[in-house]
């Protein structure tokens, strides 16, 4: 019998198709390509924004012009022509839907293909979904029910119109425009996103969920998410992403800000499956995302991410542990295949006393991909008794891929305790042989081994997401075994 070698595995993996590569045939209202002050004014005008927001956009744009694209990440990509991107694409429908029945059937079909039929979602899972296609949020479910508890969950544009005080007070406080190149760009041209506010002492009874999808060709998606948990509040937020298959590269530069006030807790989970490009590395999403949360006293923020898509991922969901006794967590699985690049990790900034952080990162590389963990644990002078535990594991599936770890530690307080563990392993031929000798097919065996390897992280996802993530992992890695 022919030996099933690593090369065969690599070939099988290469031939995996992207399963979400359909394009929805919906008329888009797209503004001309290019980036200048007039475009920004146009976006702001189309969204009927207040003057302060336009001023903030223009100031961000001015700062962006003076900034340089960061080059320190371990990623390679064709440089982006920012003038060739259309910065606004809305499905052509001017008024917001009154009821679910009013929604364009084609758009509904898209959602069904994504596996998130609203009806199903509403009936079965109790998940409230805010669906963002290209740049406009098209439907938000469960809003009434949440409203009874005083919870605000709506599109960012709607929040700007209806809750301008909250937006003005918190937007840009965690990630100011000058933070980095892509954050500045986002602050200038962001189009929509989600907004969530949980009032004092309220425990949000359901998982809040947003599904992002890039549909129109030649567009970028610059969404903006702001989640505020007031004192003692709790929220669990889910974010899923897909994009259709296109030969061109599309840019996604999002900003997500989380604010956990005293005693509050926010759990933020992402399953990212943007189109990764084909097996030769053509096309795919450039995913440059800034995500950060701030914890006040006794607050907790927990990031969980499963990253399987995008041609290039540049993403570091971080926690500023400002208040005493606050807790930050980061659980990540990043899978790269073919020619994908992922440079992802977290920053844990310990400012308060007795602050604690945990980092569990699992990288899986296949094909010719490069997968890097980059993390910073920073203990400031006043962070007495700060604690950090980091564990970074890498699993290699082929001999042509790479796994890299860049952990940075800066400690200015002698009472801090910081632990870092790292392992690199190769998917074991002996493990596969053992599974197969028990009658398990190669595909199922790889699924079992990989899911076992990621278990610590998958366990942190809400139930319905964990199932999806497991399938996605298996889908991204399994070869059709011949």
């Amino acid at each position: 019998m022919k030996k099933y070698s690593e090369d065969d595995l690599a070939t099988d993996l290469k031939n995996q198709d992207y399963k979400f590569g359909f394009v929805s045939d919906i008329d888009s209202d797209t503004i001309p390509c290019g980036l200048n002050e007039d475009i920004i004014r146009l976006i702001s005008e189309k969204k009927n924004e207040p003057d302060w927001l336009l001023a903030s956009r223009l100031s961000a744009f001015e700062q962006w012009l003076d900034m340089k694209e960061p080059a320190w990440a371990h990623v390679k990509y064709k440089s982006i022509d920012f003038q060739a991107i259309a910065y606004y694409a809305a499905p052509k429908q001017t008024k917001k839907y009154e009821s679910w029945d009013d929604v364009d059937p084609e758009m509904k079909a898209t959602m069904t293909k994504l596996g998130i039929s609203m009806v199903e979602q509403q009936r079965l899972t109790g998940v409230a979904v805010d669906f963002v296609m290209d740049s406009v949020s098209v439907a938000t479910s469960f809003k009434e029910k949440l409203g009874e508890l005083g919870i605000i969950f709506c599109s960012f544009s709607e929040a700007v119109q209806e809750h301008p005080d909250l937006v003005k007070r918190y937007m840009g406080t965690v990630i100011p425009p000058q933070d980095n190149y892509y954050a500045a760009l986002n602050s200038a041209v962001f189009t929509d996103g989600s907004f969530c506010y949980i009032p004092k002492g309220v425990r949000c009874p359901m998982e809040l969920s947003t599904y992002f999808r890039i549909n129109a060709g030649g567009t970028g998606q610059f969404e903006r998410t702001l989640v505020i948990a007031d004192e003692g509040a709790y929220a669990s937020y889910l974010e899923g992403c897909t994009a259709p298959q296109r030969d061109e590269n599309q840019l996604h530069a999002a900003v997500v800000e989380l604010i956990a006030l005293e005693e509050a807790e926010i759990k933020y989970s992402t399953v990212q499956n943007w189109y990764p490009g084909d097996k030769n590395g053509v096309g795919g999403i450039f995913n440059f995302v800034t995500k950060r949360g701030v914890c006040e006293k006794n607050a907790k923020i927990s990031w969980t991410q499963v990253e399987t898509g995008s041609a290039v991922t540049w993403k570091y969901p971080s926690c500023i542990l400002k208040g005493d006794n606050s807790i930050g967590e980061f659980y990540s699985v990043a899978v790269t295949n073919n020619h994908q690049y992922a440079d992802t990790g977290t920053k844990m900034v310990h400012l308060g006393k007795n602050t604690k952080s945990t980092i569990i990162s699992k990288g899986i590389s296949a094909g010719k991909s490069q997968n890097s963990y980059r993390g910073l644990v920073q203990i400031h002078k006043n962070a007495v008794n700060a604690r950090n535990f980091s564990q970074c594991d890498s699993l290699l599936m082929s001999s042509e891929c790479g796994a890299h770890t860049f952990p940075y530690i800066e400690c200015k307080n002698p009472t801090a305790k910081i632990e870092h563990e790292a392992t690199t392993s190769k998917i074991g031929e002996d493990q596969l042989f053992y599974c197969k000798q028990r009658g398990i097919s190669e595909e199922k065996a790889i699924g079992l081994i990989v899911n076992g390897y990621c278990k610590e992280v998958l366990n942190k996802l809400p139930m319905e997401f964990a199932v999806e993530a497991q399938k996605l992992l298996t889908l991204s890695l399994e070869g059709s075994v011949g």
Partner: protein
Amino acid sequence: MLKIKNLHASIDGKAILKGLNLEINPGEVHAIMGPNGAGKSTLASVLAGHESYEITEGEILFEGKDLTALPIEDRAREGLFLAFQYPVEIPGVSNVNFLKTALNEIREYAGLKPLSAKDFLQLVKEKSALVELDSSLATRSVNEGFSGGEKKRNEIFQMAMLNPKLAILDETDSGLDIDALRIVASGVNALKTKENATLVITHYQRLLDYIVPDFVHVLFDGRIVKTGGKDLALELEEKGYDWIKAEHA
């Protein structure tokens, strides 16, 4: 059940098995003994279908089917089980989940429906008692952090769960103390029926006090050079392998 004719196998171009013949019928227990490097573990690996070995000549028939034409998992599904000398750890995958996947794949191959959760758990309970396996081991990750003895017991537990036609025990006695040996052996004996068969590969006669073989074969330099009853094992224990080496050098 198993017919091996003139089997030649090599690894990295080096010949290990050089014309091995063996026939095993239902209900029989065979033991293969031999000095280090004789090819005992190679035989086990070749039967299971390990891809590092190349079969250069000969044939293996299992229940009349050409075993060499089947991939590893189909050999297992046909009813061939290998209890590993060094069981492999699979972190994060629970023993129960692993076995459920395996059992249902085997059932699907046989055209049977997956076992219900209730029936499966009942089976786990029943079979783990057979090898006195601590029930907490059933829910732990496959072999992870198991002691040497626990790993071997777990192999026999898996064998009990999957109910193979032919079980090959590769040096199952290595690393076992006398109590563990007794438990493992009694598990194997309890699973014995008129329809299935066992092939015990071992260095020492010790295990054969507990699992009594119908036939003992001596493997030397890639061939079976002597076959006898259980007394042959005692003779080997007493005299060592040198006289065999001298005869066949």
